[in-house]
């Protein structure tokens, strides 16, 4: 048996290395799926929440939209207002005891993280939409686009670019917070670490390794997302055509019918 701290660290890595790796893999899978699915949920929610009906819409459509908006508000408030660890318990054991559904822990994990992320991103996406000039929506309306078309073709592409830093932040939060899913026995990094630590009663050494792994994960993701962000906002240099000395943009007149 090792006698020093680093001796123990080396020993535990050799003994449980693949456990840490598998745990890290599950953590990344949950965080990745949860962030992407949560983001998709929230984009959909944002489209509904920003919808305005035209003057000619009947009472049925008005009522349906109002009901949908109310339900989405409830969803956002409830999932933002309760801890994810509690949501995991409620979903997993609720499904089991009241619906008779023995859903796999991983399925419950995906569901909880996605839905939770969706609720958190509500305000982020709303902020992103507000950051897009109102004239963009008016112009889309003025060329005959529906609300859905204007949102998907014009508004959200611009909003998403603006909120990429916050989405990356949410991804990092998910990598870390998915650790609470150990309460429903999801074999993510924290759960694996706890198992490894128990065997030799070496909690400090194991969780030292665990924290290094978490940090490597979040740091890598942050750097990668920075690259994606730069891609989305386009190159730093571009040609400005609108100068007085640039002549090709002459107006051909007269306009033929």
């Amino acid at each position, binding site marked *: 048996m090792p006698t020093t701290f680093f001796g123990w660290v080396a020993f535990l890595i050799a003994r449980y290395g693949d456990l840490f790796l598998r745990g890290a893999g599950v953590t990344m899978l949950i965080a990745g799926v949860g962030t992407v699915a949560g983001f998709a949920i929230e984009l959909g929610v944002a489209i509904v929440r920003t919808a305005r009906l*035209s*003057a*000619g819409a009947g009472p049925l459509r008005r009522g349906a939209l109002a009901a949908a908006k109310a339900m989405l508000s409830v969803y956002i408030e409830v999932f933002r207002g309760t801890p994810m660890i509690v949501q995991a318990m409620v979903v997993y054991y609720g499904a089991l005891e009241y619906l008779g559904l023995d859903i796999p822990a991983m399925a419950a994990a995906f569901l909880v993280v996605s839905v939770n992320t969706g609720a958190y991103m509500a305000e982020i996406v709303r902020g992103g939409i507000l950051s897009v*000039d109102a*004239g*963009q929506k*008016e*112009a*889309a*309306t*003025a*060329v*005959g*686009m*529906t609300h859905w*078309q204007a949102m998907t*073709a*014009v508004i959200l*592409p*611009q909003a998403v*670019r603006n909120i990429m830093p916050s989405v990356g932040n949410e991804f990092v939060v998910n990598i870390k917070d998915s650790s609470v899913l150990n309460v429903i026995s999801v074999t993510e990094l924290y759960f694996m670490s706890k198992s490894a630590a128990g065997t030799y009663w070496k909690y400090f050494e194991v969780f030292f390794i665990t924290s290094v792994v978490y940090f490597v994960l979040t740091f890598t993701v942050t750097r990668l997302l920075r690259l994606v962000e730069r891609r989305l906002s*386009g190159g730093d240099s*571009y*040609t*400005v*055509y*609108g*100068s*007085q000395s640039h002549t*090709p*943009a*002459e*107006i*051909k*007149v*007269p*306009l*033929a*019918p």
Partner: protein
Amino acid sequence: MEEMIRIERLEKRFGNNPPVLRGIDLAFQQGEAACIIGPSGSGKSTLLRCINLLERPSAGRVLYRGQDVALLPPQVLHARVGMVFQQFNLFENMSALNNCVAGQRKALGRSRHDSEQKALYYLEQVGMLPYRDARPRQLSGGQKQRVAIARALCMDPDVLLFDEPTSALDPEMVDEVLRVMADLRQRGLTMLIVTHEMAFARDAADRVIFMDEGLVVEDGPPGQLFTAPQNARTAAFLARSLRG
């Protein structure tokens, strides 16, 4: 001559504020180029925005070819009655070409090929063909506005609304946009132009409407309105504007 737009007792107020429009009655014939002038806050832009329902009128109604615009499907209304904005409002996430294509594809359901052909045609007409792939942020104000005009024309509108199309432009770029607009007049397009360009209103419009405090004060051919205004307020406004 068919009547394209008729406005009946149109009123608009925002919240509990005093009304911006206080009963407007106007009619526009096919092919007419009408300039709407007046001091800031007189309701010119609001009037224009009520015609294509970017604002909902508080009272009264607007007819497009005899049909109440509030009852028309919004996509149909917006394809037939186009708009050019003061701030251009080009779609920032799209090239000049796609700015002209998007509306045709989405609202008119045209094929990509047909949409592009039409877009290229109009981009050439406004002299922006060399910049078909440019993003809005690469273009000057005048160029953006020319693309915006091409985008509106691609929808084959009957009526085009211009909301202060040159007010956000540097002086040297105003002329290029006004030239394009003067040429459009030859095509039989009905044009309603809110503008502060008095020389353009005088030289290129069939009709000039002076608005003040939410009402139409004077309405007539430019020759009459500019040389012999019937109303004291019109005369005072023109004296101030033309001096500048």
